[in-house]
């Protein structure tokens, strides 16, 4: 079973790399969706099938689709040249170095974790649900309010009052 983990991990990493270094927005988003699907595989391997399903449905299905909608609305795909201009190879050096430093730190941090011997049982969605609605009930309610606030906010932020300018004053 481990080999699936490694395959899925490699796929996720490769597609993430392609996603952040791509020039075409739509392509990058699609690569990102691929990466999310690979991660959902890992979730399944980690005995969290419910979460794997949620990942696909909500994350890849709703959030990424929202991204793609907005990207298509803004017509960014036509700006390949600007992306090329902005994305010089030497821009990658400093962030990579910093990320490498942090990665080294992470390695040192997780070096000495003793693995707990695995039990046979997995965490079932039932357990998750019970925990959600008993221990973390308050969090659920707050998440609901947050979602409502998000809806209202997004509606207001997204609306544009058309600025009426005299046609002689329009910026050409």
């Amino acid at each position: 079973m481990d080999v699936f983990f490694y395959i899925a991990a490699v796929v996720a990493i490769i597609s993430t790399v392609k996603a952040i270094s791509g020039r075409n927005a739509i392509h990058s988003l699609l690569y990102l969706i691929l990466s999310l699907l690979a991660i959902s595989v890992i979730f399944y391997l980690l005995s969290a099938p419910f979460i794997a399903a949620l990942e696909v449905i909500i994350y890849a299905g709703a959030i990424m689709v929202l991204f793609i909608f907005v990207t298509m609305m803004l017509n960014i795909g036509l700006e390949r040249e600007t992306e090329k201009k902005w994305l010089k190879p030497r821009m990658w050096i400093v962030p990579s170095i910093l990320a490498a430093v942090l990665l080294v730190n992470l390695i040192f941090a997780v070096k000495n974790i003793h693995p707990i011997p695995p039990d046979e049982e997995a965490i079932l969605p039932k357990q998750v649900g019970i925990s959600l609605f008993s221990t973390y009930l308050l969090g659920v309610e707050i998440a609901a309010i947050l979602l409502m606030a998000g809806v209202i906010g997004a509606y207001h932020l997204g609306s544009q009052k058309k600025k009426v300018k005299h046609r002689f004053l329009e910026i050409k």
Partner: protein
Amino acid sequence: MLTVPVGTQILFAGILFFLGLIGLLVRRNMIFMLMSIEIMFNAAGLVFIIAGTHWKQPDGQVMFIFILAVTAVEVSIALAMILQVYHHFKTLDSDAINNLKDQN
């Protein structure tokens, strides 16, 4: 059951996180920056699931559900704001939005 050591799992999540970080720092287009933030959120959630599985508690998965909700809200609001910025500045270059710079 997975016998991959926990350290490796977390390391993998860390790699994903740092890839997102690199993407955030490198890209200028705001859509890409938002996308990189999504990658980071996802990787953080992955760590929670790993931890939950490690300690045999459902709390990790609960936490991931909350993260999911927050991410959804955040993305929608962020995209709405990007729309506003685009209509005002007519560009998606985050370096062009530097009106708060020091005028010296």
